[in-house]
């Protein structure tokens, strides 16, 4: 009887989704630093300023640009002018290992010629969705985590590559402002 109870309990425990904290973003940034031996630029104010600036950018650009302006939080890490040399298949495996199961790998694209890697992961966040967009190029990289509304999730599902790029571009426009 005890054994049956233990199995039922174990099944119940494993069926409860484990919600990761905000550490996943930091873990990914740290993993990139260790894997490629690079350092990200510290922009401590960006997390707070990002939202405001992104809204401003969206207002200025309007329409199509309004991807992340509704987001509840944005986290950005930028790596500039550093060498991203390494086996991308190993990188991908390490990245998947770094993120816990609550993050669903959605789309990965690798372009050999331009040495560009794009990774988009999604995570359920109640009535919204968290998106993690990782872009690695030959000399630069960006990690963006944002919260998407249902509409923006629909846009991301419709056009993953285009919307993923827009999210990164918008977040890094903030960086330049």
């Amino acid at each position: 009887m005890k054994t049956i109870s233990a199995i039922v309990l174990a099944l119940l425990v494993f069926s409860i989704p484990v919600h990761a904290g905000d550490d996943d973003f930091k873990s990914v940034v740290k993993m990139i630093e260790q894997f490629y031996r690079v350092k990200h630029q510290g922009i401590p104010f960006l997390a707070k300023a990002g939202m405001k600036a992104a809204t401003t950018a969206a207002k200025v650009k309007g329409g199509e640009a309004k991807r992340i302006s509704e987001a509840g939080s944005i986290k950005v890490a930028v790596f500039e002018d550093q060498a991203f040399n390494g086996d991308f298949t190993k990188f991908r495996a390490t990245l998947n290992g770094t993120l816990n199961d609550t993050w669903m790998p959605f789309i990965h694209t690798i372009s050999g010629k331009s040495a560009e890697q794009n990774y988009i992961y999604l995570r359920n966040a109640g009535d919204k969705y968290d998106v993690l967009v990782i872009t690695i190029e030959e000399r630069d990289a960006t990690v963006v985590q944002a919260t998407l509304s249902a509409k923006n999730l629909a846009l991301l599902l419709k056009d993953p590559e285009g919307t993923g790029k827009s999210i990164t571009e918008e977040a890094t426009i903030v960086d330049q402002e």
Partner: protein
Amino acid sequence: MKTLFRMKITMPLILLIALPIVVQAQDAHLQLSSLDHLAGKANQTVDVNVDERLMKAAAKLLSDKDADERGVKQLVEGLKGIYVKSFEFDNAGEYTTADLETIRTQVRGPGWTRLVNVTSKKEGNVEVYLLFNAEQVGGLAVLYTEEKELTVVNIVGPVDLDKLAKLEGQLGVPDLEIEKTKKNNEK
């Protein structure tokens, strides 16, 4: 002895719990990881994973009021997964028949039927397979090959060619012009 007795009871119980999970996993979801090694040779690689969790969440989260949300919701409703692997190479001969066989052996299994098979030097080769569970379609697989390209699309759940045509260009599904291929095949 007591332990052995417990094990005798526990093991079938575990199997009973685990078996449906194993059977479900064997349905239309193809194992595509055998192609992963091609990423190292490819000039362009696309890997899409829209699993059941994401499908369900999207269907629940997306509203019917907004046109964009409604469009995606209608596409994903009922589906259990969309998986795509696509490789573009600089040179011909980067993938082998053995690579293709890892997919073909799976769609030769029980329930699978080849619906379309087009061989064209110009437009590439397209093979479309459907999995039937009794009279219902349980999934679809598309194998598209060109000299310098290999794409596999695997959709799990009730799907037909019309729905596939609507999915093309969305949710990471590449535009394979399946509808055109189907018409050409019918002629």
